[in-house]
């Protein structure tokens, strides 16, 4: 491969060294100069985690070929702490609690630094605009805006430097105090190493061959040509699994790599380890897989029909899990109701979109312990499963949880750690795998798409007499967390209300779509979306205020839940009152009062100004510039 020579000033130091023409500036900084503060989040200039300054101007380094760095002055997040001290802005991030997982934060710090360099008096709206190219999935951005405003005011002398210091805590009472996050300095400075930032001596790079088909038999896999390539140190398939092959949070229905059959597009089929990722990727194209296509299922309700193709032999009806809840007499409840309302609600699949794509590093230690370092949300369970899969005693398997750059449930599945372990065992060298964003999106779990039919019967006074709720979820090709999601959706679905007669059924169904799995709020989001929308529909029909209909039915201290559990203290009435008061809610039935409401909030007193960026169409259809 031809090489080029780059001469540039990087973080104040003149460098002159070889680079490969295919490298991006991001690769050069991270792989060659070991400046891992800039992260790769998307590789397409869409998320901003790789932001750096080139001649003082903010750039996304994943979009800059290394050749463009020739003769330039480049600053990464590491430049901000060259004196050994955090910058005012970094201290403000620390104080404001602006970092959570921290993966977007080095890029966000660079963008924010640029924002107040360009306009030291930028107001909150301008700050938002200037951060518009940087995505954060954890914080909801509020504390980031707070931090930039704090830094701006300290820099302008409007606030004293002490505004950046820890709040005083009275008498050692730390529980209940806004202690600054202990991990924030390592995050705002870019010093914290995530799995994809870690390297080991003699480390190999893993790449994964993935299924192009949603449902197909694998007739043969020929890896010989890939194995013969220079620089390739190992190729693995299902045949390399020594033990009981299968993982999943509830049912162990997913093999480390496809075993005779693929069930979704993106499923791992084989993996290659090579001296670098380029060789490994090239080797993937030399693996020959012969598939025999099978009829596939893309709709959960179709998959429930008798005679539908079977995706897993153990579940001939394609049902991953059904959870029933029963209370009272549903027929009598509806008969006693003055009003019965039925509606269908549906939700779409959602990507976790943590900014840190999956990554991991595995090695076999001198005592023969197979060790996997990865941002896994459940190393305890992963250890159990991997020990069975590689047929080793549990103390010969070690999982280390690296800092997690956002999880939200998406990193509970042992989707790639098994391949890393097998390859480390096969090659006896450390092996690292770093997913691309595309790989992360196509191959990992989504929030369950759902369809909920909800029927509710109420008295004229608004008291709920009966609820029937049936939810069908597309669980995709493998079980992952589907069973637990169905359970939580069922238990919590009808809401914190006293319902004497109840029938709930939730179904998780296998299809050949991307698997669905754990996602923050785990099924309860889907069913409570239905119930809480439904209560407003009923309130309108009954002429009741939405808070009132909720209060009438609210569980109170000592209530019995839908699963017949006696609760002690129930705070539902308290939170209703708190929200009603804080929002200065004007009572009234939800009859689309809209602009007739007297409680619409003035800007600055709880709402932001509506965004008027760019041009807007006026009602008459003509294009007008923003005000």
């Amino acid at each position: 491969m031809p090489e080029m020579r780059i001469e540039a000033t990087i973080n104040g130091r003149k460098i002159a060294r070889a680079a490969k023409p295919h490298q991006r500036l991001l690769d050069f900084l991270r792989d060659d100069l070991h400046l891992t503060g800039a992260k790769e989040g998307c590789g397409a200039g869409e998320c901003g985690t790789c932001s750096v300054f080139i001649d003082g101007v903010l750039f996304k380094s994943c979009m800059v070929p290394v050749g463009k760095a020739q003769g330039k002055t480049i600053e990464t997040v590491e430049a901000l702490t060259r004196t050994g001290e955090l910058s005012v802005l970094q201290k403000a991030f620390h104080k404001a609690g602006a970092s959570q997982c921290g993966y977007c934060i080095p890029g966000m710090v660079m963008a924010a630094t640029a924002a107040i360099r360009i306009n030291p008096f930028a107001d909150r709206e301008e700050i938002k605009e200037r951060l518009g190219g940087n995505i954060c999935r954890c914080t909801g951005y509020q504390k980031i805006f707070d931090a930039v405003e704090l830094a701006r005011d300290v820099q302008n002398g409007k606030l004293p430097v002490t505004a950046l210091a820890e709040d005083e805590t009275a008498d050692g009472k730390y529980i209940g105090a806004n202690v600054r996050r202990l991990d924030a300095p390592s995050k705002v400075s870019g010093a914290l190493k995530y799995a994809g930032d870690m390297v080991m001596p003699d480390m190999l790079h893993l790449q994964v061959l993935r299924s192009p088909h949603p449902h197909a038999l694998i007739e043969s896999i020929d890896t010989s040509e890939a194995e013969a390539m220079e620089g390739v140190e190992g190729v693995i398939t299902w045949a390399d699994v020594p033990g009981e092959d299968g993982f999943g949070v509830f049912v162990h229905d997913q093999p480390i790599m496809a075993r005779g059959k693929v069930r979704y597009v993106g499923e791992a089929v084989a993996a290659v380890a090579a001296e670098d990722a380029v060789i490994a990727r090239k080797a993937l194209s030399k693996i020959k897989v012969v598939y025999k296509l099978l009829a596939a299922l893309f709709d959960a309700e179709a998959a429930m029909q008798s005679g539908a193709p079977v995706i897993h032999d153990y579940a001939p009806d394609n049902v991953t899990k059904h959870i029933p809840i029963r209370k009272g007499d549903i027929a009598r409840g509806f008969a006693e109701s003055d009003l019965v309302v039925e509606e269908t609600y549906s939700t779409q699949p959602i990507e976790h979109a943590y900014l840190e794509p999956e990554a991991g590093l595995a090695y076999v230690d001198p005592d023969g312990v197979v060790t996997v370092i990865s941002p896994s949300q459940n190393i305890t369970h992963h250890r159990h499963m991997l020990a069975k899969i590689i047929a080793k005693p549990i103390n010969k398997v070690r999982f280390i949880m690296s800092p997690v750059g956002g999880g939200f449930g998406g990193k509970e599945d042992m989707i790639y750690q098994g391949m890393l372990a097998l390859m480390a065992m096969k090659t006896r060298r450390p092996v690292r795998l770093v997913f691309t964003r595309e790989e992360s999106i196509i191959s990992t779990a989504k929030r369950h798409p759902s369809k909920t039919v909800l029927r509710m019967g109420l008295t004229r006074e608004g008291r709920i007499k009966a609820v029937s709720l049936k939810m069908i979820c597309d669980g995709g090709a493998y079980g992952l967390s589907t069973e637990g999601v169905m359970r939580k959706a069922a238990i919590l679905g009808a809401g914190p209300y006293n319902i004497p007669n109840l029938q709930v059924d939730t179904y998780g169904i296998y299809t050949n779509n991307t698997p669905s799995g754990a996602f923050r709020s785990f099924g309860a989001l889907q069913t409570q979306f239905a119930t809480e929308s439904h209560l407003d529909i009923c309130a309108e029909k009954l002429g009741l205020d939405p808070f009132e209909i909720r209060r009438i039915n609210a569980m109170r201290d000592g209530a019995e839940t839908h699963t017949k559990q006696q609760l002690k203290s129930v705070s539902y009435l308290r939170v209703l009152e708190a929200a009603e008061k804080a929002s200065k809610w004007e009572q009234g039935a939800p009859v689309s009062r809209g602009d007739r409401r007297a409680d619409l909030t003035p800007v600055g007193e709880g709402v932001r100004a509506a965004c008027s960026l760019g041009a807007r169409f006026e009602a008459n259809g003509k294009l007008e510039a923003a005000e």
Partner: protein
Amino acid sequence: MAKKRGRGVAGCWYGIARTATVDRAGAWVEIDDGGTAKVVTGVTEIGEGILTVLAQIAAEELGVRPEDVTIGDNDTARSPEAAHAGATRQTYMIGNVVALASREAFGKLAQVVADEWHVSPDVIEAASGEIWVGGTNHKMSMDTAVHLAKSRGVVPLGSASFGTDTTGLHPVDGAGRPWQAYVFGCQVAEVEVDTVTGEVQVLGIWAAHDVGRAVNPKGVEGQIEGGIVQALGQALMEDYKIDKGHTSTPGFAKYILPTSLDVPQITSVIVEDPDPIGPLGVKGIGEPAMVPTIPAMMNAIYDAIGVRVTELPASPEKILMALKDKERTENDRRAAAQAAE
């Protein structure tokens, strides 16, 4: 009027820690040289702030400062089981077990100091690196106290386990005790809908959540704010599109996420209804923060324009189509009424 405002409300409830199974966690604590402390438990940050929360808890229980606490990282070969980072369980399960283990370690140290001062260990107090007996001149630094303990052959160690009293669900009627702690929440959303473009902007959210006891209020707000913005994504824009098993949204150019320009102003109200079972009264907030957001937004859209979105997301296309349907229905009704006259 092209732009219509509206408000909506929704409530929620949620269970804390693992569902319908016995949850458990373990921790080891050592009051270390120099009056510092080591906490070893299988847990690592996933961004929620758990390391800081545990340092606060250990510091208060041990009488040291949070920055004196070193938290052992999650390693199945080096730390006791604390299981997974999820299920809104970390503050509840790990927070409580760290408090219990800290109390045991402190008890060992307090015994040594009490013997030295010839008082009962019950009267020993400690905070921020000092240990004393109230109303007396007995006082020393934690550094000295640890040194004293070690000179007596005592390493002040504690360990604990915390488990839940929960059950599975009955296979027929679902009866059972899935959690021992529940939280409740309520959110109000205020939106503006552009009836020409169909775009919905969420301008404000008021979020009241019971968290049991807030260990770090700013951290709780961070969880609420982050949860609301994730829910906003699902409510209005995010959509993983899949056709015959192939996605057409494999990157952030096609899979649209909320940016700094999409987010509402958020007012959090933290309600504290302490858990009567655990030693700290804490519960949790990670997941429930996003449960009421979407229905509150959909109820607000209905309030603004009289359109009920039952199929997420409420994209501009869907809003415009629903407005057209509504107009058509109203026109038909008007025409029918005129014809009847």
